[in-house]
């Protein structure tokens, strides 16, 4: 029995150490890969064209889904807070104030980026992984193209530029969603909500929103691109890489969210 336990413990330790070494291997490879990404090769116009295409895909293409989720984020937050505060001595206008800050600091940026990790992230992984499997990347490499740079850098630029704008729009629509919800529920007046929106405003919260948006968009683009670029095997492996892109991006976004909150607000 004792022998069996020892064997089990040894195999668990081995599994854990394999997991850690795999993590360290991929983390190191991911970091080292950045040197290639920022080594531009080829004409600027090609990078520009690709960046515009990606901006359209990531920015305009994601606008409808971002708008839909934002309305409900704001609306649900307003209704829930209104429910929590009902019967308390806290003034009604606090609901507008709380919705504004929750949406701007946390909900708009995190929800939007988690959804975009699913939408844009999986698309990036599948697109680059598909190119790897169809030998498009090999073809470009033989032509002399730095594929890490040409395929990833425009996506990073597009995401870092477009996602903060999407997040800002999401924040605005979220607040409007809260306003509409208060009107529909009729539990307190819309004027109170607007008064709350104007109360205790800290411009730094907007800075926080943009800092988070830039960091999250960088994470979701590079992690997804990494998963697609280094995919091996066939369609099953491509599907797995696409899933990994979303899962790892989501986890890293949440970790980054915590770190930024601690560093910038505590």
């Amino acid at each position, binding site marked *: 029995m004792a022998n069996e336990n020892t064997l089990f413990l040894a195999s668990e330790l081995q599994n854990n150490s394999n997991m850690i070494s795999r993590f360290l291997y991929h983390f190191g490879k991911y970091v080292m890969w950045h040197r290639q990404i920022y080594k531009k090769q*080829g004409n600027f116009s090609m990078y520009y064209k690709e960046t515009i295409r990606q901006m359209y895909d990531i920015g305009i293409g994601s606008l409808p889904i971002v708008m839909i989720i934002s309305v409900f984020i704001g609306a649900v937050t307003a209704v829930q807070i209104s429910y929590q505060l009902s019967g308390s001595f806290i003034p009604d206008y606090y609901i507008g104030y709380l919705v504004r800050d929750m949406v701007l600091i946390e909900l708009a940026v995190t929800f939007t980026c988690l959804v975009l990790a699913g939408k844009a992230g999986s698309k990036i992984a599948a697109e680059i992984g598909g190119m790897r499997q169809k*030998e498009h990347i*090999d073809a470009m*490499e*033989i032509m002399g193209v730095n594929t890490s740079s*040409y395929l990833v850098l425009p996506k990073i630029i597009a995401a870092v530029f477009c996602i903060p704008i999407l997040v800002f729009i999401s924040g605005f629509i979220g607040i409007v969603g809260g306003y509409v919800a208060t009107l529909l529920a009729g539990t307190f007046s819309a004027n109170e909500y607007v008064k709350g929106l104007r109360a205790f405003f800290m411009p730094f919260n907007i800075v926080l929103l943009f800092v988070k948006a830039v960091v999250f968009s960088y994470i979701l683009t590079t992690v997804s691109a990494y998963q697609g670029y280094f995919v091996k095997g066939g369609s099953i492996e491509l599907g797995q890489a696409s899933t990994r892109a979303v899962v790892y991006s989501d986890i890293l976004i949440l970790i980054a969210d915590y770190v930024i909150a601690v560093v910038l607000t505590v």
Partner: protein
Amino acid sequence: MIRAENIFKSFGDTEVLKGIDFLFEESKTNLIIGKSGAGKTVLLKILVGLFEPTEGHIWYDDVDFCTLDKKQLQEIRMKVGMLFQGNALFDSMTVEENIRFPLDMFTKMTFKEKQMRVDSCLEKVSLEGSNVKFPSEISGGMQKRVGIARAIVLNPKYLFCDEPNSGLDPKTSITIDELISDITKEFKITTVINTHDMNSVMEIGENICLLDKGKLAWQGNKNEVMDSDNETLHNFIFASPFLQRLKKRAQQ
């Protein structure tokens, strides 16, 4: 001219290439032939730099390809064109955009100059007027020709073709072979073709390298194939019962 010098390549414990020495000559169609799993594709990928050899050197004229830094590698790659087995055409681009891609990426030519170059390449592969079609809208043979047009658009010194006849009917295969052969002669290119198509061997095999189990089993040209008494070559060439019967009849 490209020279493979004592090339070894292993993947883990599996040794795929075991000391290949071969000279791929200029203005000639150089063929790498052999059974599946003989190491043809690995050798081709080493020649173009997609794989690094475990041991040995690749010489492009008098330059050691394996010791180049990124910038020098880029300079050599500008002189290389490659036709892939699956064509590797970019699906989201038209035929014209596919061919123009290397020009857009690396040259300072004006749009008009690029357009003229693309049209001349399309004319070379007999695909005039197919500019705005997408790869999915043209046949396999036409896709191969677009692949060739893209490979030669930068006037390469070295052309690599990975199984250019795969998936094509015999007549289209012959057209593709003739096209590659003509281009090789016209532009004095060092062409390396990876194939196991017997028509190609007998029609355009000016310098043939037969691989067997990762080793060079025979070298020669199409005229020497029939006279050779190399057993591996004969087993490869006359693998099908039909060809064996033909051979017997010819001997009788």
